[in-house]
Structures are given as structure tokens and as C-alpha cells.
């Protein structure tokens, strides 16, 4: 369980890091918190020629509130998000999701950019990014581009990021007054990757839910917006019976396959459970 040999570089500016990536011809891999990459190296799932340690690039970290957007630098660690008053106030969905991400020692090192880059289908941050309609900032030598979360997650551990790009930051719309969120996940033990989970946001108007967005994770090969089921909730209302009926439509939104967590049928059942519970928690939060 030892990492293979690699060349190690530790740039101190984004510019320098981009130069290395540009010259590496796809043979370099970025090391952020290392909480996924180090195990991948130990298991030899990853064997890059060059390891680009971005931990000493200060411009990649930090949380700022600009107008109605919260911009979070890729290198911002989970523990910083947990402690941030901006996150607590303006990104309540993220605040709710954070305690479910791994364990204390891993949250002390792991970064939001690492999670969004890895794109584990059962991870919490990608699902929150999708539910909130986040924009992902990708930087390369040729400039900066923004990709909406819906176009960013392409498949199993697959994203729109190109090998010469660094995920520099993610921008979330700050929660507006009248908006609400819910988060629920099933896992075997606290901190384990989810068997299934749902992260949702909506506007509440006169007791009804509008613009309900439910991002399902651990239910498919990537985080997925349950558009059909959310539309059913808006159509049928929010009684427990209506939510249960809406959840029945989930098979049209997500396509779980057999895996170590269960067969496809069991996993679809988990999806229905977390969908109902996350939306119920959203409703609960609006009752104060």
C-alpha cells in the first residue's frame, strides 16, 4: 500500500501550476487535500508521472460573498466551511450537508474543489452544487471558463474539466429570503459514503413549493436532478401521500444499478426514501 514513484512539484502560484499542467501532456495530477488521491495512489489506482501539490497556492483558498454569490476557492477545506459564518448564513444547504462528509480528520484536510473534481457519485458537495445551481470555475493557460453544475458532472468520476485545467473556485447563489432547503442521506455509519441521499432547495409561496430542485446522490453514476419527481411534488402538493406518490416517479429520473450497496431495486427503494425525507425536512424547516 505504498504510492508509486512520481515527480513532485509544489507551485506557489496559480500561474506556475498552470504552466506545469500545460507542459505535462495529461501526465500530471493535482494533489489537494489528498483524502481521495492518497488512497488512490496507495492502491495504485492512480499513478501520475507528476504530482502537482496545490496546497501552497493561497489564491485558491477562501470564502467571499460578492453581491448575491458566495465564491468558494477550490482549496477551501471542509473544516473552514464548517466554521464559516458566510456559509452558515448564506448556504444553509451546505452547512447541513457538511457533518455527513467523512470524519473530523478528513474534513480537516479535504477540500471542496477536490470533491467537485473527483465527482464521486455518492459525495455530498457535488449534489449540493447541483441542487443550488452552482457555477464551477475552470482555469487554464488559455483563460477562465464557467460551467454550470448541470453541465459539469458527466458520469462516473467524470467531469467537464480538461487535464490542463484547474478547478479554481465554485460560485453558489446565496440563499434568498423565502427559500428553504432539505438534506437527507442514508449511510451505514456516520461519516461513511452515502448509500443514497438527496439535497433539495425550493421557494415557499403561500405554503406551496416552487422551483423545487432535488439533487439525488448515490443513486446513479453521478449526482442527478430528480426533475420528474420534483414536478410531481409541485403538481400534487406536499402531503405525505403526495410525496410518496411523487417518489414513485423517481425511476424516470435515476437509474441505479446493482452494486455493493444493494441490487438496483433496493437502491431505487433507498432513493425514494431519501427523496421523501429530504423534501419533508425542507417543509419542516419552513414551519420554524
Amino acid at each position, binding site marked *: *500500500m*505504498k504510492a508509486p514513484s*512520481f515527480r*513532485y512539484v509544489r507551485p506557489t502560484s496559480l500561474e506556475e501550476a498552470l504552466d506545469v499542467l500545460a507542459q505535462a501532456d495529461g501526465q500530471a495530477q493535482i494533489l489537494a487535500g489528498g483524502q481521495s488521491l*492518497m488512497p488512490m495512489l*496507495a492502491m495504485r489506482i492512480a499513478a501520475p508521472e507528476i504530482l502537482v501539490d496545490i496546497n501552497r497556492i493561497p489564491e485558491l483558498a477562501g470564502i467571499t460573498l460578492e453581491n448575491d454569490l458566495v465564491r468558494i476557492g477550490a482549496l477551501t477545506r471542509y473544516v473552514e466551511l464548517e466554521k464559516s459564518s458566510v456559509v452558515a448564513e448564506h448556504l444553509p444547504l451546505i452547512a447541513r450537508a457538511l*457533518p455527513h462528509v467523512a470524519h473530523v*480528520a*478528513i474534513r480537516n484536510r479535504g477540500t471542496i474543489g477536490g470533491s467537485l473534481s473527483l465527482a464521486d457519485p455518492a459525495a455530498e458537495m457535488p449534489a449540493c452544487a447541483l441542487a443550488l445551481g452552482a457555477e464551477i470555475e475552470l482555469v487554464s493557460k488559455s483563460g477562465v471558463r464557467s460551467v454550470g453544475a448541470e453541465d459539469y458532472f458527466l458520469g462516473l468520476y467524470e467531469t467537464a474539466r480538461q487535464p490542463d485545467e484547474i478547478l479554481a473556485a465554485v460560485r453558489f447563489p446565496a440563499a434568498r429570503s423565502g427559500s428553504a432547503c432539505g438534506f437527507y442521506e442514508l449511510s451505514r455509519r*456516520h461519516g461513511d459514503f452515502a448509500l443514497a441521499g438527496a439535497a433539495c432547495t425550493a421557494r415557499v409561496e403561500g405554503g406551496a413549493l416552487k422551483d423545487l430542485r432535488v439533487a439525488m446522490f448515490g443513486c446513479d453514476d453521478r449526482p442527478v436532478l430528480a426533475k420528474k419527481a420534483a414536478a410531481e411534488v409541485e403538481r400534487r402538493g406536499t402531503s405525505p401521500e403526495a410525496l410518496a406518490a411523487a417518489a414513485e416517479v423517481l425511476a424516470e429520473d435515476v437509474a441505479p444499478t446493482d452494486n455493493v450497496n444493494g441490487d438496483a431495486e433496493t437502491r431505487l427503494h433507498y432513493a425514494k426514501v431519501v427523496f421523501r425525507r429530504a423534501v419533508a425536512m425542507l417543509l419542516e424547516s419552513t414551519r420554524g
Partner: protein
Amino acid sequence: MDEFVDISLTLNGRPVRRRVPVRQHLVDFLRTELGLTGSHVGCEHGVCGACTLRVDGRAARGCLMLAVQADGCSVETIEGLTESGEIADLQEAFVARNALQCGFCTPGVLITAAELLGRGQPMDRAAIRAFMSGNYCRCTGYQAIVDAIEATLRARLERAASTGDGGR
């Protein structure tokens, strides 16, 4: 051929300089190069917590950090925490309550528990279990570990309430 890099760090309060292979993780460095065998190597992929140590004041998995990444950092191990007396009360509680059997998990458990105690917040047993969820113990069944942490936390909070020093 392995690439080597010179690093300097503060280890348990003392300066250390060494040349390390870049692919060596921090626990292997501490154990094989410096003879500090208190940090254990269990799974080597981030799951068990036996390698937990402290980097710049926070608990971290020693197997998920390269030694070269500790360059310029302050690293504390169970040896350092024991020497400073910071967790003497916690260690006594572990002995008193039989919170260790083989002891393989214990250094990592103690360092995570030290972070819990350092927050100076009251916590119920469920919150203690959630906080400790990243440290596996194959012997005790956790009950005694939670007992020992709970007792130490309560004692520290009581002491802090009577002296007003915030639980540290």
C-alpha cells in the same frame, strides 16, 4: 528512481531536518526515519484512523499526507502529546475504564479525542460517537472509549466553569 526532497518541520516542538523520498507518507517517515512508532499504520488508505496525528494544530490522517507536505508544518504525535501532559487526564480515564485492549487504535483515538476536548463544547454520547466515527477499534466495542471521553470532557467542563478558563 525515487526523487528526494529536503524538508524541515517542527516535530513535537523541536526542529527536524531530513531528506525524504517524495512518495513516502508521513507515518512511514516518523516510524522508520525518526523511530517514533506511536503513530500506527493500519489500512494505509484513510479508513481506520490508527495513523491519526496532528498537523498545524488539527487532527489529520498521517497515511494521507506525504512527508514532503509536512515541510514547514508543526507536527505533533502521541509521543509529543504524552510528553506535554496535554491529555494526561484523558489517558488516565482510558486506563481507569479499560478503554483500550490491544492498544493498536489508541494513539489515533486519543488524538481525535484531544481535538474533541479542545473544542470545549458539551457533547452527548451520540455526538461523541459521531466525532469519533473515523477511528476504528476492533477490541473494545467503543463503549468504554465513549465512557472515558465523556468523563474527561465533563471533568474539564466542570473545572472550566469553576475557574472560567474555557475548558482548556
